[in-house]
Each structure stands twice: as C-alpha cells, then as structure tokens.
C-alpha cells in the first residue's frame, strides 16, 4: 500500500536549503573567490571572424610583456587534444577558425589586467572565408563547407526513426494538421560565470577546480587531455566549488578548462581562467535552436493516429551535446500522449554559428512547443475541445509507448484536471484575454544516456549520531544536498541537519555520470537510501545483541534506536554508536552503495525504456494581449506536475517556479541575437532574461503518484518546469486574439505582424 506524507517525519517537509544562510551572507566560495598560492590568471583570445584562415600569428609582443608567463596558440596544443563527443573541437584552433567563439590564443599572467593587455598585443592576420549561417542552406548540395575535410555539412547522426506505419495512418486519419515551427538560441544565464583553476603537483598529477555538473566524466576528459599532452598514467582530481547555476551548461568540458590545464602545465603554477559576463555569453553554449516540421492527425473521435516530425538543427561550428538533443526530443515525439505511428528525422548541420549544449529539458521544450501548438490546431480542426483532446489521448499508468517507454505511474490526467480547475477554458474571457494548456512527459527515473546511469554513495556514522554522506551526485544550487539529507534522515530517524552531504570531489566521492536528465533525486537519492539501509542493518545487528531482540524488531526515530513497546530497550543513536566504536573488537559503521537503475540504452533501433519512470505535467497560462502593441502579459500561470513524491515541497516548488520563469523567457523575451555568426546582445541589458519584476504568480499543484522505484516514491523534477511553457503561452495567445505564433520568442513585433495579417 502506498504511504502518505503523514507516515514520514523528514520526507515531505518544507525544509529550507541547508546552504541558504551561507549563500545569502556571501560566505559561499565560488570559483571567483578561490585564490591559490602563486596563482596566475589565464585569458583567452577569440576569433575576429566567423570563418577565416589564420595566415599568421605573432605573439612576440605578448611574450615580451612583463608579468606574462605563457602564451599559447593552436601550434602549442597537442594534435589529439580535442573536445566534444565526436572530438571535432581542439581547445585552441590552428590554421583556421570556424566561428566567432573559436579560441585562437591564450595567455597566463600575474594579473587579469596584464593577461588582458597581453591579448591585445597578439597580432593575427586572417583571410576571411564565406560564412554559412543558415542550416537549411548549409544542407544544400553546393553549399560551402564549414569543415573542408568533410564531404558535407550534415553530421552523421542516427536520427531517422519510424515506429508503426505513418503513411497508412495518415491516409486513414479524419483530420490532419501540418506546420513549421522554429525555436531560437537561448542561453543558460548562470549567475555564477564559468571558471576553472588547474594545477599540477611535482609528479604531473592534475587537480582542477572547475564549475562542472559531471565531476566523474570531466575527470575522463581531462585524463584524455593529459594523455594527449604525453602525460600517461597520471591522476586527475576534479573539485567542483559551489556553482551559481548549471542548467546543463556544465555537462561537457569546455576549452577554458583544457586551456587552463595547458597553461598550468607550461607555467608549473596554478592557473585560473574565470569568465566575465560578455565572455560567458559569447564563449559558452546555447540551447539547441531548431527548425521543426510537424504533421499529425487524429480520427473522427479525436484519437491521435500519427505524428510525423522532421527537424533541422543548427549544430554550429563544433559538436557538443546539442547535437544529441534529438535523443530526448524523441521522448515527447513518440510518447507525449498515446500515438502509435511515429516518424522522426533530425539532421544536425554544421554552420559558422556558435555551438549548442545541453540545457534544461534537453530538446524537450523545442519538440513540445511544436507538438503542443499542433495539438491545439488539430483540436480546432477536428472540432474537439482542447482539454478534451488531451484527455482522450492522455498517457496512462501501465502504457508502453512506441519507443518502448514503460509508464509505471502517470498522473497526467490529474495534472490536466488541476490546470482546468484553476483557469477558465470556456472561451468566455474578456477581449484580448485567453487561456492555454500544454502537457509534458520527461524522464523522471534517471536516463540511460551512457553505458551506466549509476551513482555511488558512501555513508559514515560519527560518534554523536551525525552522518556524513559522500555522494557521486552534484549539487549545483538545485538542492540535492537537502534531498539526500532528508532521505537519509528519514531512513535513520534523524533530522536533516544531522546529515552532512559531501559532494563533487573525485578524490573523496564515489562515481556518478553527472547531474543531468532530472536524475539526481532519483538516482543519487536511491544510492544514498541504499547506503542508509545498509548502515541501518549494521546498527540493527549491533543493537540486537545489546537489546537481546531480533534485529528486525529495532526501529529508528527521533534520534533514538529502540524496540517499540519496550521502554527499557531504547538508546540515543549517538550513545549506541560510541558503544560500537569503543567496545573491544569494535565495529565501524559505514556503508557504500552503488545504484544503477534497470533502465535501457536505446539500441540501434532507437527503442528502449530509457528511464525507470516518467514525470508528467500540465501547464496552463492566462494571458492578456495588447492588440495595439503586441505585448503579452501573463496574468496567471498554473504548473501541475506528477512528481511521484515531493521529498521537499519547498524546493520542488522552487524548481517549478525557476523552470517556469525560464520557460516564460524562452516563450516571450529571451534570444541570443546572432548576425552572421556574431552575437549582438552579449549582456543582460539586451539579452532579455526575466527580472524579478517580470516574474508572474505561479501556482504549482503537486500530484503524488508514489512511484514504486523512486526513493520514497519520488520522480525527478529538475527540468519539467520549463518544458511546456512556450506552447502554453502560444496557445493562450491564440485563444486570446486568434493568432498563432510559430517562431520563438513571441515578441510584440511578431504578435503585431500576425494581428495585422489577420485583420487585413
């Protein structure tokens, strides 16, 4: 029988973030705050062109500048030192640049000012080449090539998928809609800018302090770099300081990290590279922009018959995780609502633009924008209510989708109900006001992207009833430390503050594949829970001798170890632990646990149950459109999610609020403006991130479905908040004024143009 929240003493409680005070007081140490003895400051010089040959580089003046310790160009980078999963990106480019963010030189100096000055002294002669900035044009046969040694600008990627029979289903459909949608470049806007400090010991072992979401996988990348540098069999220690936001931006290693390593090795001193805001905008990656063609149909009763989608992804000049976002886009395409016949083709195309990365939702917001906009169009064409068509096609517990996703628990219907309860969908709003709804599916029980989806945990009890948990998971501000503390405290009858969570130091913490795919609560949570259960058994075993009762009779609550109903047999946990440690032949109470979920890699057929469970949600928006200015005001917003169980509703709501605001920016204001490959708005003045004053009131109903595999029933909820936001807004705008905007962001200009077109 499923448990209710009243069965728990720590899980389900609104416990404020354990690190909130130190962050609020400015005591948290970010990479910017860390200074090591003898540390030098590195800085990177970027290309002046989107596409050019480097004819000549003269670094002599920079080298001669007092205070400069090293100057590197592409010539100094070992041939095999390359980044990205297809290794097409050396940290400093040699002979040719393919985008404005291409690194052409780097320096290390005794101060940031001198480093900056040194960059100004580097003279580079370029020979400009024709740039390619439109991915659809770059796909044409006679298009110039971004990388001359390749035959085509189109990457070799496996995204050509067909489940069922789309052609047949289309013929048999009663209603079919078809359209083209486009989404823009947006960027993570982490308030803490990127940075790393690299240093080598006397034996050429590397320690790198770096802003990363993937300590263990970054360790592998850095080891490969060392190997390329001729440093074999060395150790790499990755330490992640407190970071001010990840959102997927730190799922790959970046040039600045590898350059810091090269400079540190050359100078034999610690070298720090820390980005300023402009550099953060220009030299870190964006969300993957897309051109989406969608066609879907339903029968006369509104039941979906097929979904056929084709996408063109602007890969930029180099390849990072942006190119693999179709693997996650496939999830909503194949499995958001019941649809048997699905086709999906995606092409990633090299251009001379910036390259993309993972970003919260990992392709899901792009795909869901097209799907959920199209759902409303289909409902209208079929004459079916927009809520009704979603109910008809909703996913349900026990479903297996064409992709092979096994839906264990599904609260989508409850989420739709919750949205409908809060907002009016009867079309009877005042003029210019409308409502919109959009749903989501996302991985909620890990995601097997790599060979493993595992995470380790080590748990150590001290003498006083306190616990240290060494987790492979990464807290990047999302509050994983709290979640782990609450899970372990619940299991051991302690308070959250009794649990100290140690993370993100590869010398100390166990292995993990990283903080991505909304997996940390589920996977790192289950790993910590597994370790807690193991240590609990050890304590029970010890106590059973002490109390002379069978181990299973011993319970843990309020910091006590006791036998229910027997007041004599009760002892504070701390006292018991001291007895364990100090007794002759004593025992140390520690446990380790590795949790690797039983989910599947998608094989060659691109099928498989990639997650143990799936999170669902429905978002509803009420907007007011100013028909004279085109401005959209969000009046109300409801974001209902099936979260399995809220380990900490306060943090969960925070995730939802943050996700929604990020999604609203995606829908309405945010865009990296790019002109011929150059970013034109590399600052917060012109990049329109929502401010606190722009944020709207958000209601976040929590639907608990108590998932059988989640820690205490929980599913992941890190990303969903920003997934269906844009289509909810777009659908509300259509409801309000009858224009459908298919190109994000929905700016006042676009709304006004559409209104004029409609009224002409």
């Amino acid at each position, binding site marked *: 029988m499923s448990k209710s929240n009243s069965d728990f003493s720590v899980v389900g409680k609104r416990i404020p973030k354990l690190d909130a005070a130190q962050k609020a007081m400015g005591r948290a140490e970010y990479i910017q705050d860390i200074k090591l003895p003898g540390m030098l400051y590195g800085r990177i010089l970027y290309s002046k062109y989107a596409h050019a040959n480097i004819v000549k580089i003269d670094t002599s003046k920079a080298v001669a500048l007092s205070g400069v310790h090293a100057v590197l160009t592409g010539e100094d980078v070992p041939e095999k030192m390359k980044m990205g999963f297809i290794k097409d990106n050396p940290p400093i480019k040699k002979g040719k640049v393919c985008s404005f963010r291409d690194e052409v030189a780097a320096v290390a100096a005794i101060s940031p000012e001198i480093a900056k000055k040194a960059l100004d002294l580097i003279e580079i002669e370029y020979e400009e080449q024709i740039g390619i900035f439109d991915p659809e044009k770059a796909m044409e046969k006679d298009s110039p090539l971004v990388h001359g040694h390749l035959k085509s600008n189109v990457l070799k990627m496996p995204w050509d998928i067909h489940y069922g029979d789309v052609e047949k289903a289309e013929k048999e459909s009663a209603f079919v809609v078809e359209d083209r949608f486009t989404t823009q470049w947006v960027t993570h806007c982490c308030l803490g800018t990127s940075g790393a400090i690299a240093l080598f010991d006397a034996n050429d072992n590397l320690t790198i302090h770096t802003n990363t979401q993937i300590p263990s996988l970054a360790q592998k990348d850095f080891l490969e770099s060392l190997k390329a540098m001729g440093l074999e069999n060395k150790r790499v220690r990755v330490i992640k300081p407190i970071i001010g936001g990840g959102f997927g931006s730190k799922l790959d290693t970046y040039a600045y990290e590898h350059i810091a390593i090269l400079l540190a090795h050359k100078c034999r001193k610690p070298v720090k590279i820390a980005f300023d805001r402009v550099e953060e905008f220009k030299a870190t990656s964006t969300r993957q922009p897309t051109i989406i063609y969608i066609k879907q149909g339903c029968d006369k009763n509104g039941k979906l018959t097929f979904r056929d989608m084709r996408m063109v992804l602007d890969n930029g000049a180099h390849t990072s995780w942006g190119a693999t976002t179709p693997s996650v886009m496939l999830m909503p395409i194949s499995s958001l609502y019941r649809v048997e016949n699905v086709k999906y083709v995606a092409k990633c195309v090299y251009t001379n633009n910036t390259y993309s990365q993972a970003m919260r939702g990992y392709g899901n917001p792009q795909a869901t924008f097209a799907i959920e906009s199209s759902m409303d169009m289909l409902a209208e064409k079929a004459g079916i209510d927009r809520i009704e068509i979603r109910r008809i096609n909703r996913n349900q517990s026990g479903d297996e989708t064409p992709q092979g996703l096994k839906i264990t628990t599904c609260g989508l219907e409850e989420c739709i109900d919750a949205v409908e309860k809060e907002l009016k969908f009867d079309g009877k709003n005042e003029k210019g006001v409308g409502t919109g709804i959009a749903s989501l599916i996302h991985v909620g029980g890990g995601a097997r992207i790599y060979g493993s989806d595992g995470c380790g945990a080590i748990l150590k009890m001290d003498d006083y009833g306190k616990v240290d948990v060494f987790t492979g998971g990464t807290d990047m501000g999302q509050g994983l430390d709290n979640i782990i503390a609450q899970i372990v405290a619940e299991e051991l009858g302690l308070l959250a503050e009794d649990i100290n969570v140690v993370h993100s130091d590869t010398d100390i913490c166990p292995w993990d594949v990283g903080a991505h795919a909304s997996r940390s609560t589920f996977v790192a949570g289950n790993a910590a829970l597994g370790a807690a259960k193991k240590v609990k058994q050890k304590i029970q075993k010890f106590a059973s001798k002490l109390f002379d009762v069978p181990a299973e009779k011993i319970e843990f609550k309020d910091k006590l170890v006791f036998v229910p109903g027997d007041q004599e047999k009760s002892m504070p946990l701390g006292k018991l632990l001291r007895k364990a440690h100090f007794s002759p032949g004593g025992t140390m109470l520690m446990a380790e646990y590795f949790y690797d979920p039983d989910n599947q890699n998608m094989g060659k057929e691109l099928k498989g149950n990639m997650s143990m469970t799936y999170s669902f949600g429905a978002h509803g928006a009420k907007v007011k459109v100013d028909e004279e200015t085109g401005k959209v005001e969000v009046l109300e917003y409801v974001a209902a999610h099936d979260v399995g169980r809220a380990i900490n509703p306060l943090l969960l709501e925070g995730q939802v609020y943050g996700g929604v605001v990020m999604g609203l920016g995606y829908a309405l204001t945010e865009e990296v403006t790019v002109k011929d490959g150059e970013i034109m708005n590399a600052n917060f003045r012109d990049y329109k991130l929502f*401010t606190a004053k722009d944020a709207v009131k958000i209601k976040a109903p929590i639907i608990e479905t108590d998932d059988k595999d989640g820690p205490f029933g929980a599913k992941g909820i890190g990303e969903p908040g920003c997934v269906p936001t844009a289509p909810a807004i777009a659908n509300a705008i259509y409801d309000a004024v009858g224009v459908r905007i298919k190109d994000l962001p929905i700016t006042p200009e676009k709304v*006004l143009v559409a209104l004029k077109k409609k009224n002409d």
Partner: protein
Amino acid sequence: MKAFKYLSPKTVEEAIAFHGQHSETSKFIGGGTDVIVKLKEGWMEPDFLISLKKIEEMSELHKNEATQELSIGAMVTHATLEKSLMIQNDYPIIYDAVSNIGSLQVRNVGTIGGNLINAVPSADGAIPLIALDGVALLHGPDGERSCDVKDIFVAPYKTILKPGEILKKIAIPPQASNTGSAYIKFGRRAAMELPLIGIGVLLTLDETKEICIKARICLGVAAPVPMRAFGAEKLLVGKKINEEILIEAGKIAADESKVRDSVRGKAWHRKEMIRVHVRRIGLKCLEIIKNNS
C-alpha cells in the same frame, strides 16, 4: 580597471578648480551607474575621479512656494524623486520616468543629472524635463550659464557641456493649472530595461478644460537625441482635445520621429508604438486634469 585618485570637493567651485588642475586626466562622477561601468570596461581611464556627492546644493530638491518654481539638483537620485510626494502629485511625468529606471539599486544611486549628461538616446529622465520646459543651470571655469534641457544634447553621448563644466541643477518653471503630464517607457521587460521607445506628453487646457493651450510631445529613442514632436504639438494647440485629435497627433509624431532599426527593436514597431502611446498618454493627461479639479 586602471587605478585613480578619488576627490570629494564640497562646493561646485572646488570641483571646477580640481578639474582645472588635472583637466586632461580627470572626470566628474555623480551616482556612478554609468561612469563605473565605463571605468570597468576601460572606455574611460582617468587618473582623478571628482565626485560631486559631497556638494550639498547639488542634492537639493525643492519647490519655491512663492514662485512655484521647482529646483532639482543634478545629484538628486531617481529614488529621491520617485519617493517624493510632491513629485508624485505635482509632476507625475517625472515620477513615471524615474520610477522605471534600472532597478531599485540603480535608482538609489543613479542621479537625474547623470542621466542627462550621459546623453544616451534612451535617457528616461530627459523626456519629462523637456516636456516640463526644464532649464539646465551649468557652472564651469567661465562661470554660470543656462540652457533649455532639450538643448543639452548634441549627439549620443555628447552634450554641450564644455570641459570642466558641471550641470548643477534643473529648474522647472511653474506649471499652469489644468495641466496633466505622463510618460511611458515601452520596453520588453518590467525592470533593468532601456526603453524601445519613450513617450512623454504634457497637456495644458484652458479654463473650460476643453481647449488645449499648451502641448508637449517628447520622444526618447526616436532620434539620436531626445526630441520634441513639434508638428504634433502644433496640431493640438488651440484645438478641442479628444481621442480623435490625439490619434492624429500620434500619427504626426510617429512621422516626425527618426526611429531606426537596431538589435533592440525595429523602426516600424517603434513608430507604431509612438502612434499608439501618444493617444494613450494624451488620454491619461486628460484624466489627470479631470481628477485634479
């Protein structure tokens, strides 16, 4: 950022004298919301920064009860103006403009004088002062002089101020009765925003409250410097003011503007926003007049 010496004169004369000693290598600083950015970016590298903060008379905000003239020291912060009940009640157009500049933090230190002297086409603070026929009092090595606020601006980032000259205060002449004024910053965000277009309107009606006897339609970001839409103003004066004529004034003002396409916004949309908001803000002025009587 290059190192500099920070000087804090207590009088305008002292500040001008400091500048005279290091004229080539010194810069005045008010609230610093623009200067500090320029220093950090290396766009400005003075050896001496002369702060105007300690000059008391420059931070004074007061209305002369006898003459009804309003005097705003150049060092008065946006927050001071925003919080002043006198400004809120008697000069709503100033309140509208300054209460939406930057963020609370920016308004706490940023000054009205700095907003003018920085001379960006998007200066929110300039529009109401022009609409109110403000007069700028300048003080420099050659003594004092004054000019209309609208004539301060020469080009983006360029004013008529000579080296060593300080904008000391802005004088706003008494307002006629039956006057209403308002401003709107049209942008994409609610805070930390530059206007895509800024529109300020001031209307004075005769004692019948029907005929317009004075009109000011001032636009920001509509040209390289803040501008008045003289044609639109001319249309209104002497006429009965209603929605129809305000629509016409909006069209004329939009035509008079010299808006441009930029990364931030398209010219056609800016024009459209002038057209729409001259009417909307004009109607708001009429409502203010109605409510004040």
